[in-house]
């Protein structure tokens, strides 16, 4: 009896520990980041176009960094949505059992490659190649970052979308076939709409993955804190700014606080993404009344 209680409490503590970590991180993030707004007004911080944190006349405008993150993330979606959802559709609907047994783990291995390896690949191979191929001034730019991030987000999008397709009840497909629809019609008119919200969740979580990625963008995006005029301009996303500058910032200085404030903005963005994904997927479960 006593033993059982001890175990219960032990696991209870373990279960709540992640809540503890989340709270701790959030509190520190806000505690270190918010004081920056005493000296830089929020609109000036969010919409300022100049990021010169270490200059004597320091300026803390993060609009170029926000635009860069959004720019690179949207670009990544351009690559990973067709790739991820396309491969999910093939694996779930068309692949033979043998292909499936081969393809699914393969996509998951892609998720296991460390991001620094992607970054190195982007820097050493993809960037010089794209530079020559597209005849652009420099290969380290938003486009290259989008491409690499897009490939990195494929496993997230693919495996969640595949789960969603898997959850569409067989009866839906059978009913469709019974009405005389062929395989393509069933896929486009029945299966994909039924899994629609699950697929949306996959896309949103893929975006969440892309916007939070740090090492890769630090290595391939070029790092220029300027609002990009084209997809081939070098950019400096929020994550790589924090990674590149945190080591140098004097603890407690305005620069240090502003990096934490960027962390808050990033946290809020991914938080909103995750809430949307949760809401959408809940609707999806209710709609099908299955796969709770």
């Amino acid at each position, binding site marked *: 009896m006593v033993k059982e209680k001890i175990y219960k409490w032990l696991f209870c503590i373990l279960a709540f520990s992640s809540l503890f970590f989340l709270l701790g991180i959030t509190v520190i993030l806000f505690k270190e980041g918010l004081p920056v707004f005493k000296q830089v007004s929020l609109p000036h911080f969010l919409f300022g176009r100049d990021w010169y944190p270490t200059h004597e006349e320091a300026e803390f405008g993060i609009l170029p960094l926000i635009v860069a993150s959004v720019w690179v993330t949207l670009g990544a979606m351009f690559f990973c949505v067709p790739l991820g959802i396309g491969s999910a559709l093939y694996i779930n609907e068309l692949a033979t059992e043998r292909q499936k047994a081969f393809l699914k783990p393969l996509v998951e291995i892609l998720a296991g490659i460390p991001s620094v390896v992607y970054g190195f690949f982007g820097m050493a191979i993809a960037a010089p190649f794209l530079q020559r191929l597209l005849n652009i001034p420099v290969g380290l730019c938003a486009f290259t970052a989008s491409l690499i991030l897009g490939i990195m987000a494929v496993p997230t999008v693919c495996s969640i979308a595949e789960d969603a397709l898997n959850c569409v009840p067989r009866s839906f497909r059978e009913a469709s076939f019974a009405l005389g629809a062929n395989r393509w019609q069933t896929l486009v008119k029945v299966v994909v709409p039924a899994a629609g919200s699950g697929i949306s969740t996959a896309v949103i979580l893929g975006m969440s993955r892309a916007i939070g990625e740090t090492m890769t963008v630090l290595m391939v995006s070029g790092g220029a804190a300027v609002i990009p005029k084209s997809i081939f301009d070098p950019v400096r996303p929020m994550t790589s700014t924090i990674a*590149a500058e945190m080591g140098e910032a004097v603890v407690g200085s305005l620069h240090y606080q502003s990096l934490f404030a960027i962390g808050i903005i990033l946290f809020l963005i991914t938080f909103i993404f995750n809430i949307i994904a949760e809401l959408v997927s809940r609707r999806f479960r209710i709609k099908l009344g299955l796969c709770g």
Partner: protein
Amino acid sequence: MKSLTKIIILAAILAGLAAPSYAESIVIEGSTTVLPIAQRAAEEFMNKDSAADISVRGGGSGVGIASLIAKTCDIADASRAMKDQELEQAVARGVDPVANVVAMDGIAMVVNSSNPIDALTKQQVKDIFTGKISYWSELGGANEPIVVVSRDSASGTFESFGELALDKQKVRKDALMEASNGAVASTIARTPNAIGYVGLGFISTSGLKPLALNGVMPSKKTVLSKKYALSRPLFMYTNGKPQGLVKDFLDFVLSKEGQALVGEEGYVELN
């Protein structure tokens, strides 16, 4: 059994008492520019004095100085002098930073080897990096946009360059920011229209071409005589006057043998 435990404990205590005079250890942290010097010197030093334990880390000048202030390292490598703010912080924490110059370094302007330009004036460099000049044609080169490559604001090289070449003006916003000398060198070697700056130790990278500045080529000689405009001293900061192993190590770096290592790593010896 019990007496054996006692003996072991006694031995441990004795070893602990004796330790300071034998197995001393120091931590060196800071500038990636000074890192190769610190690493080589530490290796050679430990080869001679096998009891000494020296660990060397990079991180950037600011990181090293912050660690010195926080008393988590014994020697802070820096490629720039300490800032007033850092000095105030050090004093507030009871740290007395002493600058020890260990070598000279030149910041070389480099372009891709396919670039026809061979020389620039200091004013032209300033105009390129602050955004007044954006095309090679304005300097007598091809009608192509200049790809400006800079070091990240976390590096001492960035700050030295800002002071020596830009008169503290802001670097243009669309400049690429790279995390290390090596990254700048490889980006420029792969990008025909790029210009950037690296430590003197990196100008022999294949695909790079160093530029003459105000008619002076960057070299050991011109840096040491300060004829070359972008020259700077490299520091190893200590807390107070160096003592014990820290002193022995710095003496070694400044000795003939240590300075020979400085030369081998591509920097400029002091003597």
